[in-house]
């Protein structure tokens, strides 16, 4: 059961993480800072999953990455772009709609 839950959770996370990154990048952030921010919120993300995802979002023009060389160690800092904001708005609308549907069905089941 735990294994099945884990595999379904992985599938759910795939889409959710994209939305999460777009929401978090309201403020510019670099990869490791994002991992820590998610962890503080109780959301564990595999580090080796986050970076390929950031790369894909960057390729699609939804976020923009820039190497910062002023710090002791070079870091790639990401920022959301205008198409990224539009995508985020669309994804949030879908997510809210899904949440409403689930909540509605659960309530109906409770009254049944």
């Amino acid at each position, binding site marked *: 059961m735990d294994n099945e839950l884990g595999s379904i959770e992985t599938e759910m996370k795939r889409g959710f993480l994209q939305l999460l990154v777009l929401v978090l990048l309201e403020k510019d952030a670099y990869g*490791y800072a994002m991992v820590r921010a998610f962890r503080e919120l109780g959301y564990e993300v595999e580090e*080796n999953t986050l970076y*390929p995802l950031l790369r894909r979002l960057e390729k699609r023009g939804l976020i923009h990455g820039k190497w910062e060389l002023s710090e002791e160690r*070079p870091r*790639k800092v990401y920022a959301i772009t205008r198409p990224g904001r539009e995508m985020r708005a669309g994804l949030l609308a879908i997510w809210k709609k899904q949440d409403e549907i689930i909540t509605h069905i659960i309530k109906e089941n409770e009254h049944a």
Partner: protein
Amino acid sequence: MHKNLEKYLEEIGHYLSDPGEREEILNEIRSHILEKAEQEGAPLDEAVLEKVIAAYGAPRRVAEKYLDGKPVIAPAYQRFLFRYTWLLFSFHFVLIVLGALFNKSFTIFPFLFVPGRDIADIFLYTPTAFLTDFGIVALVLYYITWTGKETRLPWPKFAIDLNEAKPVARVATMIGAGIMLALTVFAVRIFLEFQTLFVVSLNFEKFRPLFRPAPGRLISLAVLAMMAAGTIGLFIKAFSASRRLACWVDAVSDGFALVMIAIVLRQQHAPLFAVNIPARLLAWSHLTLTITLFVVALFVAIDLVVNLVRLGRRRQAG
């Protein structure tokens, strides 16, 4: 410079295909690992670095997350890989046996070249033939996938679905296996006594073989081998409810029988009979034996094709 980290990054880089992206990806991973290691064990400690590297994941798996490659064969076509391979191979195998039987090489597309060699060579050539057929089918399916077109792949529907196969009647199979075992033991006993299975009379004191010693021994051994294979096959079927295994047993048994029939048919050219038979009858007996064996071989070959096609339905439950 952290040797272990650089070695780890080099391994990841080995799997990444785009040289332009490679450096940037590796820089990002390097930056992340060093930062995390520092956070967890300031000042930077090699042991902590090792731990962080291990937690990041195996190089191949890390690299794969960056790769968006298309499958070599589209998932919808994957089940056809073994279906078509078995179908092709079953025809190929029949051709191999024919090549060995007539001792002639020939070329038929897509089998290209079927060598006409000795019976023993069949065993050496068969795995190569299977791999060739597998390669041809894989190449065709790869091409179909690569074109990206919606292609409906055909599949014969002549009632050879594994699910349609009748379940093995276990009691009948047990009885059959017992009878076959008894017959095989009896045949082995005869062979050990006379060095042949074909005797004119079973009078142990006045023994008269039907065939000459050399071909008689070879034909007898071929028949014994078929009987033993049949007995083993029946016992396997009797003790297993798996239809898939039953199909395997039948297919192997058919292939084996074809090889044995080929061995027997090759003996036709040599003087065969040890008893005096009139010349007119001798010619008839040779012809009748050859036709009978060919008819048997034809039925066995059809059964082999059907069994191999059934096995090609890899995903059906056993």
